[in-house]
């Protein structure tokens, strides 16, 4: 029997290589997360809403890209923060953009942290200790 996963990681990114980058990074660090991915905001939302009140949502960390087709990261955040069930969700932004406008906009929507992809290792390094120590919000 596999040990209880520390948390659920949902990677929202249309770039498979970037998803793979995170997956490989987590695997390399031997972090036992339950890793899922969605290739845009819409499918991410659909997935989360279908898994509400399950283990999936108990300890959920979303790694969000901003530039995506259909529903981009900002639109996703906007939707999440206006949904009473999802509004406290833990979201890290992981994107190629280092534009101030993007960081400002993201922090306005109360993201837990903003990381650029060139520094993906920085995010992955803290993710383990973070998940071990953080008090997760209740989504319902």
């Amino acid at each position, binding site marked *: 029997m596999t040990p209880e996963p520390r948390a659920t990681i949902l990677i929202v990114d249309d*770039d498979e*290589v*970037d998803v*793979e*980058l995170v997956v*490989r990074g987590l695997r390399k660090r031997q972090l036992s997360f339950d890793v899922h991915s969605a290739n845009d905001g819409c499918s991410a939302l659909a997935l989360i809403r279908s898994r509400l009140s399950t283990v999936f949502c108990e300890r959920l960390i979303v790694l969000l890209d901003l*530039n995506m087709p259909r529903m981009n990261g900002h639109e996703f955040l906007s939707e999440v923060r206006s949904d009473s069930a999802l509004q406290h969700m833990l979201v890290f932004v992981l994107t*190629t*953009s*280092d*534009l*101030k406008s993007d960081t400002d906009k993201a922090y306005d929507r109360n993201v837990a942290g903003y990381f650029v*992809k*060139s520094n993906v290792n920085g995010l992955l390094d803290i993710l383990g200790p973070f998940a071990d120590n953080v008090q997760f919000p209740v989504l319902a």
Partner: protein
Amino acid sequence: MAIGIIGYSGTTRLDGTSQAMQRVSDLNAVALEVDRDVQELQMRAAKYVISGHDSMRDSVLDLHAKLVLLVNSSITNQSDPEMLSVFRKISDHLPEYRTQFDSAIEERQIRTSLVQQQLPTLSDSIGRRLGELEQIAFQEKQSPKARNALLLCKTALSRAEQRLLRYYVAPDSTLVDGALEDIDSALTHLQTLQEYEPTKQLCAQVLVDIREFERIGMRAVQATRGYLFLVNVVMAGEAAEISYYSDRLRRMSESRRSAIASTVQSTVDGVRQLTGYGIGTSLLLAVFIAARLVMLILPPIQSLTSTFQRLASGETVVAIPEVERNDEIGEMARAARVFSDQNRQQVQLLATSEELGRQLTANAENLEKTNADLNSFAYVASHDLKSPLRAIRQLASWIEEDSGHLLPADSLKHFQTIEARVHRMEMLLNDLLQYARVGTTESEAERVNSATLVEDLVGLCDNPLRVQIIVSGSLPIFVTIRTPLEQVFRNLISNAIKYNDKGDRGIVQISCENVDDSFVFKVKDNGPGISPQHHERVFQMYQRVGDTNTEGTGMGLAIVKKQVEKHGGRISVESNADAGVTFSFSWPESFAERVAET
């Protein structure tokens, strides 16, 4: 002028009438004088006959002569026939008066001689003889009757003489009657004495004397009565005649005067009326002329005024009114034309500058669009180009990681080359992004200590060969935007270190001097230098003139130049005398001021 003519004719007429008036008034004066002189003449004549003095007689004669002269001269000067006839009548009476006065003088002189010489002589003679008679009678011891008669005779004679003398002073006929009675009485008494022989002859002589006394006394009375009649009746009549005529003269002159006065009045009225008409006409004329003038001047002035107002508001007026006039209005109009020409030039200049402005705006818009395009390109470059590159690099590294042990050595080397080229491509893209973003992401001006800024940069620079970095002199502390200055210094210093070929003897010297309103920073190295022919090229994009083995994109100096110029400075490079080059760039002393200026 009309009033002048009226006034002139009026005064001329008044002048004529005033001359006539003068003549009338002269005539009146003559008449008055004649009258007064006649009265005076009569008075003097009366005085003369009373006193009998020659001086009085002469004064009468003088006055008469003067009167004759006056009347004669009046006759000569008089042209009015009516007046002339009156003067002639006066003139006729004057000789008659003189004749009468001459008679009166004669009578008066007779009386004087009678009363003052003959009568006293006779009286004395009578008195002496009576005295003799008395003596005789006293000697002869005549009867008292005789002596009484003599006394009575003497008394009667004395009384008669007194009465006559009183008459001569104040003629009263009762006195003459009394005197005659006294003389008769004296004669009667004397006759009684004749009866006596011794006195008979003497008495007879006295009798003759008394009769003579009576005759002379009566003659004197007669003379007195004569001249009194002459003066008081005849001459007074003549004087009255003259007075009457002089009065007539006065009345005539009065009527003449009133006639003239009415003429004058009518003239004055006429003149007044005419003057009134004249003034009225003048007023009408003045109003007409004023209206003409107003019509002549006001509309042109008004149109000029509105022209000037239009000109003042910057309009160009093609048709300036009244330009052809030769007066001051014409001058004003010509001035307005100059004004208008200037306005037209100004309008043209304005149009030209507006056109230029439009072009500039269009250019600026184009430039902005280009910038926007460039920005969106930069964004595309930063994301859409970098992502696949990074993915390629990741994938290559993963293949190496996962299957490296299965690949031949050549393939592994190729994978490394792929990674190196992708890395270079990423650097190029990063620099391109930086270049594109120069000036688009501005932050707030802040207080910057350029010394510490340089010090921090030097600390961060990759300096494996330990090139010495020297700050000569002091670097300023001033207000500016930190990031671009930092980027300029970073690129210049890192270039100077990177390309230095002197190892640990390499020196990079940083200094600053104040020129005008700018700081001129210099970054001097003792590296390989740059051939002067490449000095221009070093600032162009993707141009590399240094050692191509050294890692670089050829964008560093292009970014530096763009940043410096974006912030109002200039950058240049020059070769040092010994070795290496010096990059000099100016940077505004006060960023705030530059912002305020632009």
